[in-house]
C-alpha cells in the first residue's frame, strides 16, 4: 500500500447528534484500497453510529464523504451499496430458505426470455464462490451451510454489489477458530483484489493478526489512527479505555478481609466461561476487569445461577452449596444487579415502589404479602438513603433516568439484606453525580461487612473500590492484582497480557 495513493473513501468532519447526546463529533476516517482497517472502541464509542452514517442508515448531521474523490450523500443502505459501499453484519442478513445462488443473485437474477435462468445463475454462483476459496453446491439451501459459509456468501453478495469498500461488523463473533481462519483467508483475498475492508470486532488478537491500520474511537471522537505494526497492544487498550495512567491511586485503605464467605472451585459453564476458582470474603470488594466479551458478565451470571454453572463446586461458609437458579441464590442472600438494566433489571411498567420491594416479596413467597406500611417504609427509606429522584413512588420505573433506575435496582437488592452483592457494570450509562454516589455506596457496604463482586470496564472505578482485582480475557481468568499492585496501568497490562499477572 503506497502512501501517496489517494484514499478510496475519505470521510471528514462526520457528526451525529441524538437528543442530549453527541454520538459522533467531527470524526475522520480514511480508507485506502487494499487495506484492512480496524475500527476499535468500547461499547458506545460510536463505531456503529459511524458505520450507519457511512451507509446512509442514519442521516449524518455534518461532514462530507468522498468516494474516489467525489462527494456522495447516501440516503439509505441501498444507495450506498450502489455507490460501492457494502456491509455485512454479525447476524447474516440473507434468506436461509433460498438457495445459495438465489441469495447471491437476489434481485438481479440472470434472465433468459424473461424467465430466471436458473442454470446460468448456479453456474455463475459457483464461479464467484470459487474466487472466495469455496467449493460448494450453490443450488442447495443457504441454511444447509454453517454460519461461517453463510457469512462468506453474504460478503460475496456485498462485494459483487458494491466492490469498493466492504464493512464487516463483528463478522467473527459467533465463529470458532477454524472458521475465523477461513474468514480471514477470504478477507485477505479481497484485500489483494484492492478492496478497502473495514473490520469491527472486540477481539484484539484478530485485529493484530489481520489488520493494517486501526482507527480508535472513544465517546464519539477519534482518539487516533495507528499503523498496527508500529504500536503495542497496551497502547491500543489505553487509547480505547482512555485513562490517564498516572492518575487514580486507591482512595481507601482496604483493611484485612473478614471471614471466607464463598469459595468456588472449577466453576464453569460450557460455551460461556472457562473453569475458574474464586474466594470471596466478608468486607471485601473483588473487582472483575476485562474487555467486553472477556467473560465478566458470564462469571456474575454463573455465580448467581442466572446461567447456572454446569461444572465445579461452591461452598458457602464451608458448607456445600448448589446454585441452580436465582431463587436459590437469593435464598442464600446473594444479590445480582445485572449489566443490562432494561431487559434484565427493571420491570418497566411497575412503579418504583413495586420494583424496590419485588425481590424481597418474591423471597417472602406468594401468600405472605409485605404489609403496606412496611412497603412504604422500605421504599421511602431507600429513596432517601440513595437519593433516588422521582415525582412519587407510583411513577413507572421506566420513566426514570438511567442513574435513578440503577439506584432503585440497588435498593431492590439492598432491601433483601444480602450477604453477597454482585454488581455487573453498576455505573454504565448513568450520569456523573449518580456515578460518584454508587461508588461511595459500594465502599460503605464493604465497610459494613458485605462481600461484593463488581464487574466493570471503568479502570479508575475498579481501582477506587476494589480490595483485589481479577483480570479476565477470552472467558478465563488471566491474573489477579492485590494491594499496591492495583493501578489502571497494571490492569491494562494484565488485560493486554504483555506480561504475566502481578501476583
Amino acid at each position, binding site marked *: 500500500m503506497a502512501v501517496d495513493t489517494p484514499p478510496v473513501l475519505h470521510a471528514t468532519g462526520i457528526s451525529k447528534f441524538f437528543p442530549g447526546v453527541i454520538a459522533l463529533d467531527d470524526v475522520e476516517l480514511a480508507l485506502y484500497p487494499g487495506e484492512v482497517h480496524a475500527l476499535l472502541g468500547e461499547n458506545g464509542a460510536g463505531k456503529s453510529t459511524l458505520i450507519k452514517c457511512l451507509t446512509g442508515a442514519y442521516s449524518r448531521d455534518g461532514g462530507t464523504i468522498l468516494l474516489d474523490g467525489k462527494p456522495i450523500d447516501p440516503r439509505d443502505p441501498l444507495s450506498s451499496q450502489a455507490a460501492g459501499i457494502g456491509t455485512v453484519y454479525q447476524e447474516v442478513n440473507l434468506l436461509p430458505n433460498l438457495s445459495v445462488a438465489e441469495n447471491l443473485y437476489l434481485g438481479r437474477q440472470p434472465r433468459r426470455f424473461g424467465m430466471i435462468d436458473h442454470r446460468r445463475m448456479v453456474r455463475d454462483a459457483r464461479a464467484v464462490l470459487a474466487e472466495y476459496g469455496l467449493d460448494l453446491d450453490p443450488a442447495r439451501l443457504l441454511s444447509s451451510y454453517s454460519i461461517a459459509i453463510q457469512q462468506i456468501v453474504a460478503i460475496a453478495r456485498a462485494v459483487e454489489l458494491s466492490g469498493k469498500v466492504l464493512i464487516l461488523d463483528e463478522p467473527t463473533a459467533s465463529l470458532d477458530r477454524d472458521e475465523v481462519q477461513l474468514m480471514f483467508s477470504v478477507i485477505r483475498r479481497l484485500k489483494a483484489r484492492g478492496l478497502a475492508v473495514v473490520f469491527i470486532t472486540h477481539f484484539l488478537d484478530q485485529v493484530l493478526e489481520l489488520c493494517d491500520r486501526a482507527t480508535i474511537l472513544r465517546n464519539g471522537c477519534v482518539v487516533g489512527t495507528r499503523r498496527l505494526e508500529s504500536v503495542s497492544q497496551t497502547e491500543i487498550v489505553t487509547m480505547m479505555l482512555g485513562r490517564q495512567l498516572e492518575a487514580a491511586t486507591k482512595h481507601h485503605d482496604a483493611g484485612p478481609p473478614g471471614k471466607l464467605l464463598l469459595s468456588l472451585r472449577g466453576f464453569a459453564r460450557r460455551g460461556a466461561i472457562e473453569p475458574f476458582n474464586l474466594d470471596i470474603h466478608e468486607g471485601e470488594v473483588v473487582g472483575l476487569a476485562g474487555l467486553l466479551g472477556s467473560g465478566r458478565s458470564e462469571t456474575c451470571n454463573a455465580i448467581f445461577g442466572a446461567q447456572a454453572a454446569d461444572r465445579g463446586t461452591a461452598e458457602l461458609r464451608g458448607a456445600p452449596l448448589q446454585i441452580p437458579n*436465582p*431463587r436459590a441464590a437469593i435464598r442464600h442472600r446473594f444479590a445480582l444487579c445485572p449489566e443490562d438494566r432494561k431487559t434484565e*433489571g427493571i420491570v418497566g411498567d411497575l412503579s418504583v415502589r*413495586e420494583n424496590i420491594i419485588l*425481590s424481597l416479596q418474591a423471597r417472602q413467597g406468594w401468600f405472605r404479602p409485605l404489609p403496606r406500611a412496611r412497603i412504604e417504609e422500605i421504599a421511602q427509606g431507600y429513596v432517601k438513603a440513595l437519593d433516588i429522584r422521582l415525582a412519587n413512588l407510583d411513577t413507572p420505573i421506566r420513566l426514570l433516568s438511567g442513574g435513578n433506575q440503577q439506584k432503585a435496582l440497588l435498593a431492590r437488592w439492598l432491601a433483601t439484606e444480602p450477604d453477597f452483592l454482585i454488581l455487573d457494570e453498576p455505573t454504565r450509562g448513568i450520569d456523573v453525580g449518580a456515578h460518584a454516589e454508587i461508588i461511595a455506596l459500594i465502599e460503605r457496604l464493604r465497610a459494613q461487612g458485605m462481600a461484593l463482586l463488581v464487574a466493570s470496564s471503568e479502570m479508575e472505578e475498579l481501582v477506587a473500590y476494589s480490595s483485589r482485582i481479577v483480570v479476565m480475557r477470552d472467558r478465563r481468568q488471566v491474573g489477579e492484582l492485590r494491594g499496591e499492585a492495583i493501578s489502571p496501568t497494571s490492569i491494562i497490562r494484565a488485560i493486554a497480557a504483555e506480561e504475566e499477572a502481578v501476583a
Partner: protein
Amino acid sequence: MIRATIRRILPQLVILALVLGLNFAMFPGFFHLEMHNGRLFGNIIDVLNRGAPVALLSVGMTLVIATRGIDLSVGAVMAITGAVAASVVTEGGSWIMALLAALGAGALCGIWNGFLVAVLRIQPIVATLVLMVAGRGIAQLLTKGAILTFNDPGLIRLGGGTILSVPTPIWIWVTLAVVVGLVVRRTALGLLIEATGINERSARLAGINAKVLLIAVYLVTGLCAALAGIVVTGDIRGADANNAGLWMELDAILAVVIGGNSLLGGRFSITASLLGALIIQSVNSAILLSGMPVEFNLVIKAIIIIAILVIQSPRVKHSIYLLRASSGPVLARRAVAAKGAVGEDHP
C-alpha cells in the same frame, strides 16, 4: 387507591352505561324487575345471568393474559367439565361429587396447559390450541356424541336455580370474582403476575418462580372454565359436548380486551374484564331485543365492538385527553405535567 381503581374502570363503566341505555331506548321495560315463583325476573337479571359463563372465563383469562399468555382451550374445557359433571350424576353420584369431579377435570386441563407453556416453553397460543381442538373430542367421547341429560336437582340448581331469588350463576361468578380478586390483590400474587408478564427475565432474576406461577395461573383458568361448564350444563340440564362453550374463548378474550387489558401482558384489572363481559352480554341482549332479522346479528355486534375498541384505542384516548385538557386550566396543567411539552403542541 379506590379513586385509582375507579379511574381505571371509568371507560368500561361509561360504555356499559351507553349499551344499557341503548337497550332501554329499544325496550323501555329493560330495567323492570318483578318476582315470579320466588325468582327475580327481568332483562337486567338476564344480562347478569347470561353473562355468567363469559364472566367466569374472563376472570381466568385476565390472569393468563397478564402473564403475556392466552388460553384458547377454555371453551373446550367447559365442554369437558360439563360432560364430566353430567356423567357423574347420571351414574348416580351426588351433585357435590359432580362439582368436585368437574373442578378436578378443569384443574387437570389447566395444569396440562401450564406444563406446555411454563416447562416446555411452547407459545401459549399454540400450547392451548392443542386442548382447544382435542378437548371437544374428549367431551364427545364422554357423552358418546349425544346430549347427556339428567334430572339431579342439585346440579340443575347450579345452572338454572336461584339463591335468595337471584339466579345461582350470578352468585357463582360474583363470588369467584371477589375471591380471586381478593387473593390476587391482598397477597403478592397480583404483583408477581404483573412483573412476570411485563418482563419475565427481570422477574426471574428478581427471584420470582415464574414457572410455578405460570402453571398456577393456567390452573386457575381451568377452574374458572370448569365453573362455566357446570353453569351451562346445569342450565340446560344436559351436557352438550358439541355446543357447550363453543367459541366462548373468543368472547372471554374480547371481554378482557374491552376491559382495557393489554394482550402484551402486565397491568391487569379483573373488575374491568368483568365489565367487559357484561358489555358483551348487553350487546347480545340489545341484538335480541331489537327484533332485527337474524342476518344482521353478527354485523351489529361487530359494529358495536369496533366502536368500543376505537374509543379505547390509545390514539383516540389521547386526543380525548388533550381535548379535555385544553378546555380547563387545571386539567391542562396536569396534561402538560404528564406529557411534557406535548400538551402545549395540541391546543
